[in-house]
């Protein structure tokens, strides 16, 4: 198990405590290290997802995608990043400056805060809260405040309509996402992610209770997909109607913030789904098959985690490039008349399942 990251983290911690006597200084240094590591991970994941999406999108359209800059075009995304960093931020005249610049920051902060609650590998997580699932859901929906601020302070009718649509959509779909999470919490008996991970050591939740968990997973995936304003649910950014929606007035890195947050939200949603349905960093185990389980354990836990995330992200992109955009009334009909009753029924089903089995 030398491949696991927890050994490295423990070594760093012991080295620091050995070198520095003051406990508060050790803690401070460790906080800074964890923060810097998470920030680096945040940026890297956004970069990776941009190139991943461009490639997958191209393959769905029978194209090759970016293939000029570097092998298979992997450096294209770095070139794009540099370009967007050097671009001018165009100031507007008649708008609320403070809110205008606070918008993208809040969006990024909202999605970055969730990184603190995620579990990336065995023993690799920022904070192990006893209400971890609740924290993740609560913090990831802060972003919508930034979106609304951006749309309002841009002083632009398209931005305002886009922000309002985005607000209606995210708040509606948040309900289904939370209710499907509640089904998981009932099955796992805890909101603490570490406890949930322990419970999934032998069998992932999706295999422990296949029927209700499958329903919960499908509902969660649809709701999470809608929350990222992508795919068939991208009407807040509908180009043909609203030019670009809430971020139409942003340029340069202020737009870059929205862009990065959008891709990181994609990862966060996939990560939450992987953690609660597919066992997070737990390897695929079949109870009773010790040989098979040992083979599966050879793979480090972070690889399992990121593979599961990639699977969910791929599903998300697959849906995105398959279906046409929904109208706002169809969207709300889907949420309030179909997904909400189903997820409420699903909670009942899980409760019965837990009592019976």
């Amino acid at each position, binding site marked *: 198990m030398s491949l696991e990251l927890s050994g490295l983290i423990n070594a760093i911690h012991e080295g620091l405590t050995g070198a520095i006597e003051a406990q508060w200084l050790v803690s401070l240094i460790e906080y800074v290290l964890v923060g810097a590591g998470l920030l680096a991970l945040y940026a890297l994941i956004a970069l990776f997802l941009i190139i991943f999406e461009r490639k997958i999108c*191209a*393959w*769905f*359209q*029978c*194209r*090759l995608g970016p*293939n000029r800059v570097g092998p298979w075009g992997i450096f294209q995304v770095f070139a794009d990043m540099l370009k967007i960093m050097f671009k001018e931020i165009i100031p507007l005249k008649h708008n609320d400056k403070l809110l205008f610049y606070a918008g993208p920051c809040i969006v990024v902060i909202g999605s970055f805060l969730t990184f603190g609650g995620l579990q990336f590998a065995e023993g690799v997580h920022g904070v192990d809260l006893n209400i971890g699932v609740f924290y993740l859901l609560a913090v990831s929906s802060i972003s919508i405040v930034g979106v609304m601020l951006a749309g309002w302070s841009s002083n632009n009718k398209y931005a305002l309509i886009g922000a309002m649509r985005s607000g209606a959509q995210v708040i509606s779909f948040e309900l289904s996402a939370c209710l499907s999470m509640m089904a998981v919490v009932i099955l796992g008996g805890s909101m603490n992610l570490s406890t949930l991970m322990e419970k999934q050591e032998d069998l992932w939740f999706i295999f422990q209770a296949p029927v209700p968990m499958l329903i919960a997973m499908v509902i969660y995936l649809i709701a999470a997909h809608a929350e990222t304003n992508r795919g068939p649910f991208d009407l807040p950014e509908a180009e043909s109607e609203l030019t670009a929606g809430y971020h139409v007035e942003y340029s340069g890195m202020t737009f870059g913030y929205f862009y990065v947050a959008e891709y990181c939200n994609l990862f966060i949603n996939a990560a939450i789904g992987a953690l609660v349905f597919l066992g997070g960093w737990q390897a695929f185990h079949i109870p009773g098959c010790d040989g098979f389980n040992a083979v599966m354990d050879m793979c480090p836990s972070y690889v399992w985690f990121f593979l599961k995330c990639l699977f969910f992200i791929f599903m998300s992109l*697959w*849906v995105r*490039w*398959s*279906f046409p955009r929904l109208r706002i009334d169809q969207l709300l009909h889907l949420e309030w008349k*179909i997904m909400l009753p*189903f997820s409420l029924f699903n909670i009942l089903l899980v409760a019965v399942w837990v009592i019976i089995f």
Partner: protein
Amino acid sequence: MITYFKNVFSGLVNLCKGMYITMLQFCRPKVTEPYPENRKTRKQFERFRGELTMPHNDKNEHKCTGCGICAMNCPNQTITVTKNKVTTEDGKAKIELDQYLYDLGSCIFCGICTQVCPQNAIAWSTNFEHAVFTKSKLVKQLNKPGSKKEEKPAPVKAEPAEKKEAPKENNDKSE
């Protein structure tokens, strides 16, 4: 109530069908041409109009009589045909092609010139790499230096009759 569940499940099935279709597309070979890399192996479509050429045979002979119908029909005056009057050995005056100038820069690739040519003397090549640094290089002389009109084994007198008929037909077509 029953129709509600029917709609939901048929909707789910239909979504799966749609995703199956896109997955088939995902697995298909890609159509993008990685152009400069596959320069040697790529195949151009046969009917692609790249640039006008005048095919010459092994003896450096072409079929152009210098009639100028192509130049007359060209919408952009892209083609300029200059002729020479020559006296043949048996004392007859004959018109012969001197220079066939084709300006690639003003060609719109409509293809009328090849349609109206009574002798099928000009044809399209599929070459599309035309980029040059000076505009004057785009004006090309299509008949190679020292080339001649290809002599037909058929009696010479039969040719003028063909000439007169053929352009009429072709003109109708192009109009």
